[in-house]
């Protein structure tokens, strides 16, 4: 029963990873951009949510109505200013620029909010749970996170596959110049993709802020797990990212059940095994040519 519980909790944790990774996956997929500022941006959103809750007293979930659009706007501006220029430079540029951005954001937050641990208070929801069997109980909030994660991935997948803009995004990701020749403004498309991605980071950040305590340097920890989810699933494949998150979550929790000192380690090892045997991830987007 412990094992069943571990699997259930792992799947649920995977939902959080997928939610965290969705924006990363989108930017990876559309712009081939490895966004190392992803974690820091999530923490920015968490602080934003916290300040809103503390200052205005609005319910935590209502902050999403402000945090997500504001983060989306941040994403838009970021792309139009720094990232579009970076994408025109050498291959290393985006990695370096987003890394620099992460350092800047982290330390600005340190100046603004100090290194104190903070959290977004959701009151009694924090401890609420649903009893599934006598031995398995699932937290309501983690469950909400999981459902939101799945919903976000599904919506994003549909958006990319079925809408004109989604198609334009994929086309631009394949060949930027050719897309321009189709009448697509690549800077607009990229900015839109980044806006969506950073908006999703905002969503994930608020959920993270409710789930645990955060401080300005907390982003690094989440970043590596989100990356693993994206890569296990295969670059650019959103369903892959969801599966990647779930596989990672289950590996960590079930791993910890077997070897409590090595849950995180076993998660990493599963990740490396996937890479060793399927270097392009489990659900790669295209056969590379």
């Amino acid at each position: 029963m412990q094992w069943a519980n571990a699997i259930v909790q792992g799947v649920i944790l995977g939902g959080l990873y997928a939610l965290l990774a969705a924006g990363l996956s989108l930017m990876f997929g559309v712009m081939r951009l490895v966004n190392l500022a992803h974690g820091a941006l999530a923490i920015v959103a968490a602080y934003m949510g916290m300040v809103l809750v503390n200052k205005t007293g609005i319910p935590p979930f209502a902050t999403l109505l402000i945090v997500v659009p504001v983060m989306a706007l941040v994403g838009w501006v970021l792309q139009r200013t720094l990232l579009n220029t970076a994408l025109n430079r050498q291959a290393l540029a985006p990695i370096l620029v987003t890394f620099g951005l992460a350092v800047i954001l982290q330390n600005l937050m340190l100046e603004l909010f100090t290194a104190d641990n903070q959290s977004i208070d959701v009151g009694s929801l924090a401890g609420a749970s649903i009893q599934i069997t006598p031995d398995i109980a699932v937290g309501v909030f983690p469950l909400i996170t999981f459902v939101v994660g799945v919903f976000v991935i599904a919506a994003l997948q549909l958006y990319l596959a079925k809408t004109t803009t989604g198609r334009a995004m994929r086309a631009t990701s394949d060949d930027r110049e050719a897309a321009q020749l189709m009448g697509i403004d690549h800077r607009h498309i990229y900015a839109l993709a980044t806006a969506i991605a950073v908006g999703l980071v905002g969503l994930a950040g608020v959920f993270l802020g409710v789930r645990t305590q955060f401080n300005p340097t907390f982003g690094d920890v989440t970043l590596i797990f989100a990356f693993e989810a994206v890569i296990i699933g295969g670059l650019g494949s959103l369903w892959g990212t969801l599966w990647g998150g779930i596989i990672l979550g289950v590996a960590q929790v079930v791993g910890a059940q077997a070897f409590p000192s090595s849950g995180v380690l076993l998660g990493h090892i599963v990740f490396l095994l996937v890479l060793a045997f399927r270097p392009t991830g489990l659900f790669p987007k295209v056969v590379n040519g």
Partner: protein
Amino acid sequence: SGGSINNNTTPSASGGSASGAVAGTVKIGFVSPQTGPLAPFGESDTFVINYMKDYFSKNPLMIGGKSYGVDIIVKDAQSDSAKAGQAAADLINNDGVDIVMAAGTPDIVNPVADACEANNTPCITDNAPWQPYVLRGKDGIKSTFKWTYHFFWGLEDVAATFQDFWGQVPTNKKVGGLFPNDPDGQAWSGNLPTMVGANGYTINFPPLYPNGTQDFSAQISSFKQNNDEILTGVPIPPDFTTFWKQAKQQGYNPKIASVGKALLFPSSVDALGDLGNNLSTEVWWHPSWPTKSSLTGITPKQLCDQYETTTGKQWTQPIGYVEALFEVAANALTTSGSTDKANLVKTLSTLSTDTIVGHVQWSPTAGPTSPTPNVAKTPLAGGQWRLTNGGAHKYELVLTSNAVATSEGLNIPLGGKEEALP
């Protein structure tokens, strides 16, 4: 806001003498984590250092009959032990400090002490239990020290304090242990079980998990299965929050939870929302301590109030310990009568100071105040965080155990009795 750090780091106070001619300057180096993940430990340093600079500028030290100005040079360890070691070596070899001080977790204290040993410079540290400080060689072998001195409580005090809590609430005496694989977690898990075993408590702890773990289902199911009615441990605050919320969700409800580190700072407890109520923790220092500074005469209550008005934040426990470092250093310098380094360590080896955190006394052979040479013990108490429901702060730390401190001769008033968790 944490305030700007730059004005503390440049040497100052050297010229500001209020009482006649200054014969020289003593340089005190101070290493603290001001940025990075350990920054909460260094947060109050700025306040205390400014307070001390202000004091020394008006009250030069009298050493060997001469008046000395005091230069305090602060270096940021950036929460990194390698940087902490480098900072200490830099203070010694480039800034030429006479004495080095450091505070805040073994990650900072240990490398600074190592650097001072290697560079033959006196060093005074605190804010880390003495066991991880002493046992840091190969296989946790006890190191011997010549130049470095430490004062703090030890794990035996935590064990005693926690048992004092636990005795106040009826339980099955089964304890679940949540220990991370870091210096604190290693030291606690290595010592606590035998220390509480004598009184019939058994600690069930799964192998140490790495910091940053995102899911504690394995630990929770182990505690549930073992029916551990008591929870203890020394997790970092984010991990404890993750754990505690999950424990509630998965139906693990211990009767009492006594946790170190995660519950040290009020901000961490605030961040638990209402789930922080009645969690208990060891208390190093508290405004109600019946002590005062041997240097400035300030009382704990006054110092905390001053901190709260200056920074607008709730008082924290490291404040007293940072102040105490300066008391000890000043006492050592004046007692030794010179700034000679060898002379200073000789003085330190038997130095006795009644500081704002309690009595600090080293002795060359193990004794009641000094479990091992170079280490002095300070009193410990215990308390519970209670929701104030509309008070100045969300939570107040209410003292519920003073057994250890009392046995060491410090009579700390209790604020209440230990209450069981809901």
